[in-house]
């Protein structure tokens, strides 16, 4: 594992200034202002960022590593919520928190789907049927944050840097989506323990509506990342 400092002005549009003044070196002494097709470059302050190479793998940018950490944090938050919602579970389950960071290079694959299917199955098994817990709200936050971090990580190469505008945009998306969980949570808390008088027909209608929703968003199989 090696950490490689890379010193460059990585602002888009700033040309690579090999010299402090952005001009070719002193060997250009014989050339004058009438040189054909000499490209001038404005000088810009150089910034630096670090990349991390894990073994023989690709270089990982700090932004990608941060996304991996966020995804891991989401899984940890989900497990904490599950721990308190279920009243405790076997310690071996805590090892699942390592899965997002170990599968960082497979963010664009179906690995994350399998991981979260397992986590949700665990929630389904460990929590009591018919119960409601406010711990489902942080669990939803953990799942959402991890999902978004994985999706954003898959949208750029391992060495790609995160733009602050993209971070703010994804933050707004996450906030809006999480508000839906809060609304549903409040509604579930409000109706919990009460009989709404719903018959089997209501369940059928609900499931048909859900199936129709899935049918509407049906698409081709997901593309494989290159």
């Amino acid at each position, binding site marked *: 594992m090696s950490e490689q400092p*890379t010193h*460059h002005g990585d602002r*888009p549009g*700033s*040309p*690579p200034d*090999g010299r402090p003044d*952005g001009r*070719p*070196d002193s*060997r*250009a002494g*014989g050339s004058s202002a*009438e*040189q*054909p*097709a*000499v*490209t001038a*470059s404005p000088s810009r302050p150089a910034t630096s960022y670090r990349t991390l190479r894990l073994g023989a793998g690709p270089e990982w940018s700090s932004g990608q590593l941060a996304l991996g950490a966020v995804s891991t944090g989401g899984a940890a938050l989900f497990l904490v919520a599950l721990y308190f919602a279920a009243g405790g579970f076997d310690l071996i389950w805590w090892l699942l928190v390592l899965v997002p960071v170990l599968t960082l290079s497979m963010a*664009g694959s*179906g690995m*994350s*789907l399998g991981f*979260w*299917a397992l986590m*949700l199955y665990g*929630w*389904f098994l460990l929590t009591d*049927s018919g119960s*409601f817990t406010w711990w*489902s709200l942080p*669990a*939803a936050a953990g799942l*959402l944050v991890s*999902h*978004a971090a994985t*999706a*954003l990580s*898959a*949208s*750029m190469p391992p060495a*790609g*840097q995160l733009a602050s*505008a*993209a971070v703010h945009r994804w933050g707004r998306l996450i906030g809006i989506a999480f508000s*839906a*969980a809060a609304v549903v*949570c409040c509604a*579930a808390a409000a109706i919990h323990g009460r009989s709404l008088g719903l018959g089997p027909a209501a369940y059928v209608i609900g499931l048909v509506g*859900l199936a129709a*929703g899935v049918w*509407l*968003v049906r698409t*081709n*199989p*997901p*593309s494989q*990342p*290159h």
Partner: protein
Amino acid sequence: MVSQRRRTTTERSLGDWHPTAAHARAVILASVCGVAAVLGRRPDLLVIAAPLAVAAGWGHLARPRAAVTGRAALGDATLREGGVTTLVVHADPPVRQADGVVTLASTAWVERKPASGIARLDDDGVAVLGLRSLRWGRHRVGTLSLTLTSAWGAFRVGPTDLPDLDICALPLPSAFDTSAPTPHPRGIVGQNRSSHPGSGTEFNTIRRFHPGDRLRRIHWPVSLRTGDLHVTSTFSDEDAHVFLLVDAYSDLGPREGIDGRPTSLDVTVRAAGAISEHFLRANDRLSLRTVGAADVAPIGVGSGNHHLRRVLDTLASIAPATERRDEGEHAIRGVDPMALCLVLSPLIEPTMVALAHTLASRGLTVIVVDTFPEHLVANPANVHESLAWRIRLLSRAAQVHSLTSRGVPVVPWRGPGSLDHVLRDIARRASAPRMSRR
């Protein structure tokens, strides 16, 4: 070939939008959790699935439907080695709330900025990368690929590789200047003093006024003293023809680019560029021939900035040792007998020594510029290689001696003033008394 077209702009359709694994994850998990919540009477699962359902629905509704075309253009396709330019990438039409990533593959002699070669498209669908040429020559910019991902990372188009772009890095001329006159001037527009009186700047004598003399040439002190009008006469300024013969048989030494130590061909090409620039700016005429490189067109006699551009472009197109069968006979055919012949070579290839002998035997004024890089014989990192080069230089010394004994000066390339001494010697030799047959 000099006339080879270089691609400076490129475009390609990125193809269709495809759902990503993230979208499939959101749809499947939200659906399964919804069904499980309803059937299993688990409202907490419904809470957990609600954000994913929002993400899946949002990602689907915000799915871009327009076909996107990726375009890329170089700011300057021709630059000096060490020079910088920009590569501007557009996604047309720009996609709102999409993450666009441009990846430029690494390639030889082109430095990318950012160093990773990765840039993000801004809100207008534009990304700019910096490029720096590290060595003279024609280089292909690395493969450029473009990827767009829609909101929530739900749909993606690309990565699609755009057709490659080319840049031409002209050799960065070494510093060169000479104050010595060029031998055998015979044109009418140059800056070299001829032996003929005429309109110029170099003082000749003060003589009596003749009809047709310019009034501003009248020398009033002498005129007042003698009582007759006298004028200042000058020598005419004339241009000379410089013939460059470039050795491209070999490229000795490690290629380290503009920031490292030069190879023999680096020295040769940069020296040729510097000499061309100097003489062409002095309004002299210049022609260029190359030996040992395939597909390099000879440059005929010309002058001016446009001709300088042609010369530099030709030098940039040299690929060393691509024509080993070239004996150089075509290169020295039809050379102007009054031309100053400059042979730029590290003198490792015997053919170049033979060509210099041939030119000298024709009575041409020949100067051999030795472009052998000195660091090859003083490389502390590889003493054995340095020793081998020193032995090779010992054997080369006999060939150099044969040239000097014939009257062909061999001068190492030192930049400014490299040719001053020999050019003055040649000028003195031309004005010296000589034996002639009557």
